[in-house]
């Protein structure tokens, strides 16, 4: 959206609507978690094992909360529309696009980012494997790739089928399975073959 479409009048009108909506709301829906007009909302997250308390505009995506408010810049903003996967993080044990969800929707939940998987001194097995197999070039998509890759192995372990699974009840690792499951993570340097090699390595099935 270009900035010339953002007018002072439009913003003021928006605020007026919100102000009018708020009293109706408190009458109609006495729910514990309701924001007022233009109000910041408290959000508690456990990020990489650490409890954090934030005051956020409800519009704040989980991605922006991580990057701009918690300064965890390992998670990357690529397209900001769920098409590239650079923003992939693990929430309550599942990989999601952090750009397509609001931080306030995850109040009370556990989030793991690339910073929580490993550190420079203690790399996660998948981080090590990406280095060994050269699973990146520019590195921008890598944090998302690694968060996704870790989750993919868990999803296969849990028996969750994919589009290329021939028998829905028999889920096993193969290159085709890994490629299909990683399709939500785009790598414009096309490190794909090396990413698959890294994943197979971690899964204990490295090809000779």
């Amino acid at each position, binding site marked *: *959206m270009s900035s010339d479409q953002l007018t002072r009048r439009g913003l003021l009108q928006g*605020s007026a609507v919100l102000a009018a*909506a*708020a009293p109706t709301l408190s009458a109609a829906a006495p*729910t*514990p978690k309701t924001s007022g007009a233009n109000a910041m909302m408290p959000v508690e997250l456990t990020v990489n094992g650490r409890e954090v308390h934030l005051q956020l505009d409800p519009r704040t995506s989980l991605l922006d909360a991580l990057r701009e408010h918690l300064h965890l810049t390992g998670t990357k903003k690529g397209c900001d529309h769920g098409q590239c996967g650079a923003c992939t993080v693990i929430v309550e044990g599942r990989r999601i696009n952090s750009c*397509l969800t609001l931080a306030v929707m995850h*109040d009370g939940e556990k989030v793991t980012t690339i910073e929580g998987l490993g550190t420079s001194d203690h790399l996660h097995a998948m981080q090590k494997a990406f280095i060994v197999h050269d699973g990146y070039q520019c590195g921008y998509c890598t944090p998302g790739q690694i968060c996704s890759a870790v989750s993919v192995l868990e999803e296969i372990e849990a028996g969750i089928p994919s589009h290329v699974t021939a028998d*829905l009840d028999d889920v096993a690792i193969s290159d085709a399975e890994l490629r299909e499951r990683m399709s939500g993570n785009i790598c414009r340097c096309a490190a794909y073959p090396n990413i698959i090699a890294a994943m197979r390595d971690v899964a204990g099935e490295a090809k000779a």
Partner: protein
Amino acid sequence: MRPFTYERATDVAAAARAAGSVQGARFIAGGTNLLDLMKLQIETPTHLIDVNHLGLDRIERTDDGGLRIGALVRNTDLAADKAVRRDYAVLSRALLAGASGQLRNKATTGGNLLQRTRCPYFYDTRMPCNKRKAGSGCGAMQGMSRSLAILGVSDACIAQHPSDMAVAMRLLDAQVDTMSADGVARAIPIADFHLLPGDTPHKETALKAGEIITSVTLPKPIGGTHVYRKVRDRASYAFALVSVAAVFDKDGSARFAFGGIGAKPWRTPTADAAAKQGAKAVAEAALSGARTTHHNDFKKLLVERTLTSLYRQREARA
């Protein structure tokens, strides 16, 4: 994104009541489509009602042997559910053919039914679009319409319905269970849930203001061989140009539903009736009344070829 107020709903009736009483309110579940559209200011809700904590995340047997799927069951969980894999494999297959792993972890059953079109003119706010802004015109008719619908279209709109899941739901004769703002529950057959564009393409479903989807119910299993074949521009993570959901019986009868070609998930009894005559006859019946553009006329042949491929695959296995 325009400013909005936010509340986390704690029970279904209160959520429906709130949505009915606040103008500009929308439910948010997975948010994977809604937030995308809010960033582009195609959707501009003034209030979001977060329904993720309503407990509508269970899959249960119904008394008559069917399956009741909570509106908040995530695509991943529905596709992986044991009963769905065994008895409604076409639904698992359709779900797994859609989106990416990350999106399926978030996207919900109810939300998928409300997924909006991927017509590029709907997405481009500089272009006219009768669906986005009633009466503004249609940029697609004379524009790039390769991905768009050829069945159920009107002079006002040729947008395609993007869902894979809904095609399988249509094939399986699902019903959509809802609760309205005044607390009344009703069941809408999936065939009646999505509306054809006609003169009012901005009206997409039979839902009334404030009405919330609580579950989707499948009738008891129908047996047969379940297949979902999706043809798209890349092998994964792309919307369908054409998709076919089918259940074949041993005696050669079958039922078919189609994605990528309709203004809504497409099914016609005449296609099912032609099953024993083969792919060409099924395609001809399914495509009756098709209205194509120069760009998407290829879809007719693609439907026939996709069906031919399914029939050959079936013969090879027999």
